[in-house]
C-alpha cells in the first residue's frame, strides 16, 4: 500500500494545487507542504521496509489488462527505497526553491512539478513492465511544459530536443516492451522469465542510454540543462536520469542476462567515454550550468560502469553513487541558481571574488564542491571507490578510467569553486549581491546534511540495496 500511497499523494496534491483557487504564495506553499509530506511518507516506508529480509515488499498488485498479463504492480526492492528516498528529498528542495523565488503561474507550475514527482516515484517502484513504460513516459509530459514554458531564452528549442531524443529512445523501448511481453505472455516483472534476444535488449538499452545520458546519445543534455528552470534541471540531473539506472537494474540485467553480458563490453566502453569526455567538457565549460550538466553526464557514465561491473561491489557502488549524485547534483544546481540570481549570469569569467563578505555562501559552495569531487571520506568517494573496485573484474583498464574520472572531477570542481569564490570580483559580482539567505540555506543545507550523514555511514545504502547484500545473486534470481 505504501508504494501506491507514495504515488497517489503527489497526484492528489497536484490536482489540489491546480484546482483550488488559492493566492500565489499559498499555492506554492501547499505544493511545498505536499512535497514535505511525501518525504514523511517515505520515512515511514523506509522504517517499515525490512532490509534484512530484502526482496519485494510493501507492494500492491492489481489486474489491469488481464488478457495480456498487464498488472498494476508496485513495490519496493532495497534499491527502490533508496532511489525513491533521493527523489522525494530532491523534489522537496526543488519545490521549495520554486516557492522561494516565486515562480510565475504557480498553480500550473507546482501542479506539474508534483505530477513529475509522482511519475519519478512510480518509475522507481514499478514492478510491471508496462507500468514502468507508462511512468517513464509520463515524466515527459510535465517536463516538456516545465522546460518549454518556464525555461530560459532558448527554451523551446531545448524542450523539443529533449523530448525528441527521449521519445525516440522510449519508442524503441515500446517495441521491446511489446515484443518481450507478448513473447513471455505476461508483463509482470516478478513473473516473467528471461530472454536472450539481443534486439529486445537493445531497445531497452538505447532508451536508458538516452535518459542517462551516455555518450554518444547526450545531444539533448547541454541545451536542456542550460535552458531549463534551475530546479527542473536539478530534478532532471538528480533523479530523472536515475530512472535509467533503475531500468538497467530492474529490467536490463535480470531479464536479459546473456545479451547484457554480450554487450557489456560496448556499454562499458561507452560509459567510460561518457565519464572521460563528460569530465573534459565540464572542465572546458564556460558557465556554471555547463560544468554541472557535463559533470552529471560523467557521473552517469561512472554509475553505468558500476552497474555493468556485474559484481557485488560495483552494483552496491552504483546504487550508493546514484543516491549520492542525486543529492549533490541537486544541491549544486540549486547553488548555481542562487549564484545566477545574484549575478544575473553564470558565465565563469564574469564571476569571482564572492567569498569576501559572503561567508555562508563560501562555506556551502566549498562543502558541496568537496563532496562533488569525492574527497576521501565523503559518500561520493565511497561510491566511486566501490565502483572502481568492482569494475576491476571487467578489466583493470576500467578502474584506471574511474581513477582518471576522479582526478578530472577534482580539476573541474576546483576550477568552479575558485571561479565563483576566489580571484578578483568579476564584472557581474556587485557589492549588493547578498550572502545566502536563511530560506536558501534551509533548502541546500538538508541536502548536504544527508550527504554528510551518508559519508559517515555509506553502508546504510550500499549494504542494504540488494537482498542479503549479494547483488549478483539477487539479480541472477530476478529479485525473487
Amino acid at each position, binding site marked *: 500500500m505504501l508504494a501506491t500511497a507514495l504515488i497517489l499523494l503527489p497526484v492528489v496534491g497536484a490536482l489540489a494545487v491546480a484546482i483550488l483557487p488559492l493566492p500565489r504564495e499559498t499555492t506554492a506553499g501547499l505544493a511545498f507542504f505536499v512535497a514535505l509530506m511525501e518525504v514523511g511518507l517515505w520515512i515511514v516506508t523506509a522504517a517499515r521496509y525490512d532490509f534484512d529480509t530484502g526482496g519485494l515488499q510493501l507492494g500492491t498488485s492489481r*489486474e*489491469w*489488462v*488481464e*488478457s*495480456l498479463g*498487464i498488472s498494476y504492480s508496485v513495490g519496493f526492492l532495497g534499491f527502490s527505497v533508496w532511489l525513491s528516498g533521493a527523489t522525494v528529498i530532491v523534489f522537496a528542495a526543488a519545490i521549495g526553491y520554486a516557492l522561494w523565488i516565486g515562480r510565475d*503561474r504557480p498553480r500550473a507550475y507546482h501542479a506539474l512539478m508534483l505530477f513529475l514527482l509522482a511519475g519519478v516515484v512510480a518509475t522507481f517502484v514499478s514492478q510491471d513492465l*508496462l507500468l514502468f*513504460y*507508462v*511512468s517513464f*513516459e*509520463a515524466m*515527459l*509530459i510535465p517536463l*516538456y*511544459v516545465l522546460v*518549454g*514554458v518556464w525555461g530560459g531564452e532558448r*527554451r*523551446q528549442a531545448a*524542450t*523539443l530536443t529533449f*523530448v*525528441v531524443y527521449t*521519445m*525516440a529512445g522510449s*519508442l*524503441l523501448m*515500446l*517495441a521491446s516492451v*511489446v*515484443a518481450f*511481453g*507478448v513473447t513471455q505472455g505476461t508483463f509482470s516483472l516478478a513473473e516473467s522469465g528471461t530472454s536472450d534476444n539481443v534486439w529486445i535488449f537493445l531497445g531497452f538499452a538505447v532508451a536508458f542510454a538516452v535518459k542517462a545520458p551516455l555518450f554518444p546519445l547526450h545531444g539533448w543534455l547541454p541545451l536542456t540543462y542550460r535552458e531549463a528552470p534551475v530546479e527542473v534541471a536539478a530534478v532532471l540531473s538528480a533523479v530523472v536520469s536515475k530512472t535509467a539506472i533503475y531500468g538497467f537494474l530492474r529490467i536490463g540485467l535480470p531479464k536479459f542476462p546473456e545479451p547484457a553480458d554480450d554487450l557489456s563490453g560496448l556499454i562499458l566502453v561507452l560509459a567510460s567515454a561518457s565519464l572521460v569526455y563528460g569530465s573534459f567538457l565540464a572542465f572546458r565549460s564556460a558557465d556554471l550550468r555547463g560544468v554541472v550538466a557535463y559533470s552529471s553526464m560523467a557521473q552517469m557514465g561512472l554509475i553505468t560502469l558500476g552497474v555493468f561491473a556485474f559484481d557485488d561491489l560495483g552494483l552496491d557502488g552504483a546504487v550508493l553513487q546514484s543516491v549520492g549524485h542525486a543529492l549533490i547534483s541537486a544541491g549544486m544546481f540549486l547553488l548555481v541558481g542562487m549564484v545566477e540570481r545574484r549575478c544575473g549570469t553564470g558565465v565563469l569569467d564574469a564571476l569571482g571574488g564572492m567569498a569576501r563578505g559572503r561567508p555562508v555562501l563560501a562555506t556551502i559552495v566549498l562543502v558541496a564542491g568537496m563532496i562533488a569531487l569525492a574527497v576521501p571520506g565523503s559518500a561520493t568517494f565511497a561510491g566511486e571507490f566501490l565502483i572502481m573496485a568492482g569494475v576491476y573484474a571487467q578489466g583493470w583498464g576500467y578502474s584506471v578510467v574511474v581513477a582518471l574520472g576522479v582526478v578530472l572531477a577534482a580539476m573541474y570542481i576546483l576550477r568552479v569553486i575558485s571561479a565563483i569564490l576566489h580571484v578578483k570580483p568579476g564584472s557581474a559580482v556587485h557589492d549588493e549581491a547578498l550572502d545566502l539567505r536563511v530560506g536558501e540555506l534551509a533548502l541546500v543545507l538538508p541536502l548536504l546534511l544527508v550527504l554528510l550523514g551518508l559519508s559517515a555511514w555509506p553502508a546504510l545504502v550500499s549494504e542494504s540495496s540488494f537482498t542479503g547484500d549479494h547483488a549478483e545473486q539477487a539479480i541472477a534470481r530476478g529479485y525473487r
Partner: protein
Amino acid sequence: MIDTPSVDWLALAPTLALLAGAGVALLSALLPEWMRKAVAATAAFAGFAVAAGYAVVVFDDTPVPQSLLDGSMTRDQLAAMAQVILGVTGAAVVLVAWGERRRTNHAEYFALLATAGAGMVFFVGAENLMTLFLGLEWFSLCLYILVAIDTERETSLEAGLKYLVVGGFGSAVLLFGSALVYGATGELSFADIAAATPTSDAFLFAGLAMILAGLAFKVSAAPFHMWTPDVYQGAPTSVTAFMSAATKTAALVVTLRVLVTAFPEQSDVWTIAVAVIAAVSLAWGNLGALAQRDVKRLLAYSSISHAGFMLMAVSASSERGGEALLYYLVPYSAMSVGAFAVVAARERELERPVTLESLAGFGWERPYYGIALWTFMLGMAGFPLTGGIFGKLFVFSAAYDAGEWWLVLIGVAATAVSLAYYLNVVRWIYMRSGAELRLAPAGGSPPRDTPLGIAVAAAFAVTVGSFFVVQPILDAAGDAAASLPF
C-alpha cells in the same frame, strides 16, 4: 400472399430510433423559428442516445450472431459495439453543433446528422453486398449535404463538391467490385461468398481489390485519402468531428467484417494489401501533418495516420486484431470529437479558421479547453494516461503476433514522427503568447457554450478513462471480435 421474412425489431431499433429522431428534427422546420433549433437538436440527441442504449441491450442479448431479414443483415456484438460508439459519438457531435453559428437550416442539419447516423448504424450490420452498398450510400449522401450545408461559406461548398465527386467515385468502385464478386461466385451474402467456389479467380480478386479500395475511401486511408484534408477543413467543424470519428468507425468495422466473413480463403492476399495500405497511410498521414498550419487540416492528416494504425489491426486478421481495432476506436473517437470540439470553440471565439498561430496562448486563456486539447494531442501521440497508449499497444501486439514485425517498426517510426506535430500544438497553446503575436485577442470571456463544454468533458473522460479501465472495454471488444469467424 408473399412470404415476408420475420423482423427482429430490437436489432433494428438503433436504426429506427435515429430515423425517428431525424423525422422529428425535420418536422421542427414547421415550428416557430425560436424553438426550431432546440427541438431539432433535442430530437437528434435523443435519437443518438436511444440508439446507443438499444445497442447496449442488443450487445448484451446477442452472445451468438443471428441472421436478420433473410440473411441481408446480421445481429451480432460487433455491430452492436460499433453502434454504441456511433451513438455516443453522434450525441457528442450534437452537443458540439449546438453553438454553431448558422442562421438557417437547423432542422435540416440535425435531421441529416441523425439520418447519417442511422445509415452508419445500419451499415455496420450489413451482411450482404446489397445492404453494404445501401448503407454506404445512405450515410454518404447525408454527409455530402452536411459538408456543404453552410452555403454562405465558399469553402464549405467546395468541400461538399469535392467530397461528392471523390465519394461518388469511391462508391462506384465499391459497386463495381461487388458486381465482379457476384459474377465470380453468384452469391451476395458474405457467408455464401466465402463458401462458394469462384468460377474465375481473376474476377474475384479484382472484385475484392475494388471493394477494399471503395471502403478505403471512406476510411480515408492513403492512397485513397486525397479528399480528406480539404473536406475536413471546409466542412462545418461539427461535421468534421462526426466524419473523423463516426465514418471511420463504421467503415473500419465493415472493412474488417467483409474481409473476414466473405474472403477468408483469400486472407493471405488481403492481409498484405491491408498492411501495405496501413504502412502508406502511416507514412503519408504523418509526413503530411508536419507541413500543416491549419489545425483542421493537421487533424485530418492525423486521422489518416490513425486509419493506418487501425488497419494494422485489420491486417493481423486475427481475433486479437479485431479486439485491438475495437478497443482503439473507443479512445480514438473520443479524442477526435474532443479535439475538433476544442477547435470549434476557438473558431467561434475568433470567428475565423483556426491555425496554429491562432492557438497561441490558448492554454492560459482557457485552461480547461487547454488541458483537454493537450490531453487529446498526447493521447493521439500514444502517451500514457490516455487510452491512446493501450490502443497502440494492442495494435502493435496484434501485428507482432501475426508476424508483421516490420509493420510494428513502421508504426513506431510513425509515432515518433507524429510527436513533432502533436507536441507542436501543445507548444502553441502553452509556450507562445497571443499578445506577442498580435494575432489572437488575449483575455476577455469566451462565448458561453455549455453543451460544447459538456462534449469536451465527456471526450476527456473517455480518453483518460479508457486508460484506467482497460479490461471492461477490452472484454467488450473481445466479445465483438469473437462474433466474426476468424
